[in-house]
């Protein structure tokens, strides 16, 4: 069922991006979040059927006793591993590519500079999506596959480090000489850069064939994928939720609590998972409820970290609910962002989003116009923006509307 939901969403996004762009919204003017989702959708549509078919085969095996994966029936369990990872490795990119997209939005908006290497970021997402299909074997270095295929999988795994590195480099280059505004979403974006880099570097280490034989099925791997999945995807999602929260709910969240929670999450996360890296390197295997006395200290440190992390996440839940009930009304564009959902959509979007279909004449990170109309994102309104009685900003459309005949 989730499989169907996943495929539907993928198809829907691909067709939407191909067919529903506003006039003037060329491929080179797509916000990078859209590029990230586009790459994700390709993976969703191509990879998800494989896990669906695997599940059907598994059901057939169990109900009709046909030997497919179970050696007792004449099947091959390694075949299941191949099928499983052929989906589940690309699934890792389903989880991380949208996070890359969010990051590009946050970094550009909160450092108020044109994104460095727009094309490189956009195309590296697609490159990761494609290469992601060719590396499933690196989960199976100790499954008994041939050494030659292990070496090839290891090599292609390193290749994925290249587009990922390009992204990190471009984001840091965007920050360079930008005027950085440390609001909560930006704190998450900076946390991401740090945590995902650790996740990436530890990934390179387990990608090394000989090292992996030692680290396989230890806490090192557990820690590695939590750095990627939680330190990457979840942190980016939290940043994105804070960023779009005013547009989704029409309310602001409490900025001070937001910063405290971001700090708790960052500290708690590292406290939980960094000891696990050390545990794994010392040989603590994963999936065991009991362990030797010599691992106790690091495990207890990790447990304490999980409480800090939990406290941070519950604090977010708390002030999110509080904001729904008592939050300040959000202005149309609290961050001074330059993408259409902030510049051309009301504070709370109307049913059809736009009163008039926008005519796009500039790239997604051109902050000059956004600055003039919405101020520098520091709450001051410049240009033609005027406050009406309710504290809402009355603004002209920052992007001109398309002539009526084009909007059909």
């Amino acid at each position, binding site marked *: 069922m989730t499989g169907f939901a996943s495929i539907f969403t993928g198809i829907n996004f691909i067709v939407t991006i191909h067919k529903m762009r506003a006039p003037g*919204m060329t491929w080179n003017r797509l916000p990078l*979040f859209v590029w990230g989702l586009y790459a994700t959708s390709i993976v969703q549509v191509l990879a998800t059927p494989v896990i669906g078919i695997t599940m059907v085969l598994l059901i057939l095996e169990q109900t009709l006793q046909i030997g497919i994966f179970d050696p007792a029936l004449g099947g091959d369990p390694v075949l299941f591993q191949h099928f499983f990872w052929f989906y589940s490795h690309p699934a890792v990119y389903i989880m991380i590519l949208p996070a890359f997209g969010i990051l590009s939005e946050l970094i550009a908006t909160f450092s108020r500079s044109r994104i460095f290497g727009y094309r490189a970021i956009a195309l590296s997402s697609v490159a990761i999506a494609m290469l992601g299909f060719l590396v499933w074997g690196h989960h199976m270095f100790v499954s008994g596959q041939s050494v030659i295929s292990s070496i090839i999988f290891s090599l292609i795994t390193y290749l994925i480090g290249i587009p990922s590195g390009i992204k990190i480099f471009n984001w840091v280059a965007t920050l360079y000489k930008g005027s950085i505004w440390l609001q909560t979403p930006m704190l998450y974006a900076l946390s991401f850069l740090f945590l995902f880099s650790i996740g990436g570097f530890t990934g390179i280490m387990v990608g090394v064939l000989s090292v992996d034989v030692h680290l396989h099925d230890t806490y090192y791997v557990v820690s590695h994928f939590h750095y990627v999945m939680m330190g990457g995807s979840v942190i980016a999602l939290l940043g994105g939720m804070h960023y779009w929260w005013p547009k*989704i709910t029409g309310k602001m969240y409490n900025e001070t609590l937001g910063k405290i929670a971001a700090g708790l999450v960052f500290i708690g996360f590292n406290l939980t998972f960094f000891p696990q890296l050390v545990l794994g390197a010392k040989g603590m295997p994963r999936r065991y409820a009991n362990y030797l*006395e010599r691992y106790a200290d690091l495990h207890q440190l990790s447990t304490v970290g999980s409480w800090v992390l939990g406290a941070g996440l519950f604090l977010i839940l708390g002030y999110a609910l509080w904001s729904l009930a008592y939050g300040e009304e959000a202005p149309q564009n609290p961050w001074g962002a330059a993408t259409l959902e902030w510049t*051309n959509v009301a504070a709370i979007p109307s049913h059809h989003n*736009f009163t008039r279909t926008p005519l796009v004449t500039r790239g997604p990170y051109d902050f000059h116009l956004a600055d003039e109309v919405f101020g520098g994102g520091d709450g001051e309104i410049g240009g033609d923006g005027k406050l009406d009685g309710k504290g809402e900003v009355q603004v002209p459309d920052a992007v001109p509307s398309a002539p009526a005949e084009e909007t059909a």
Partner: protein
Amino acid sequence: MSTETHPSTAEQDEHHDEDENYLNHESGLWSWLTTKDHKRIGILYLISLAAVFLVAGVLAIIMRLELSGPDQTIMSNDTYNQVFTMHGIMMVFLFLVPSTPAILGNFALPMQIGAKDVAFPRLNDLGDLCDGVCVDLYGDQLHRDHP
């Protein structure tokens, strides 16, 4: 929107211009469950995925509690196996895979490219309902594992 005559409709249209938005455009549980609005579908996903994240997160805290001592602390080895398996499955397949595209992608993508909605709004809602059913099934399984 329909066009004319009926006074109450006309009133509604006027209201529409003033301060109607996607949140108060229609009300009632049924209108939310059958909505074709990409923004509302994003919010539905947000609610169900936040619930999954909460449950799977609490499972993680429970696992860490068990691991606070070298020997058995709060649960049997067998229960521990079930707890970490459910934590993994729920976090990856029910939370992380759908998370960002389904919540923020649905909400923001059409607006970012200047579209009124996604290309197949009904398919979008169907996907959301599929996901809801799936979460129910997993919840049921979890309940059976821990009666």
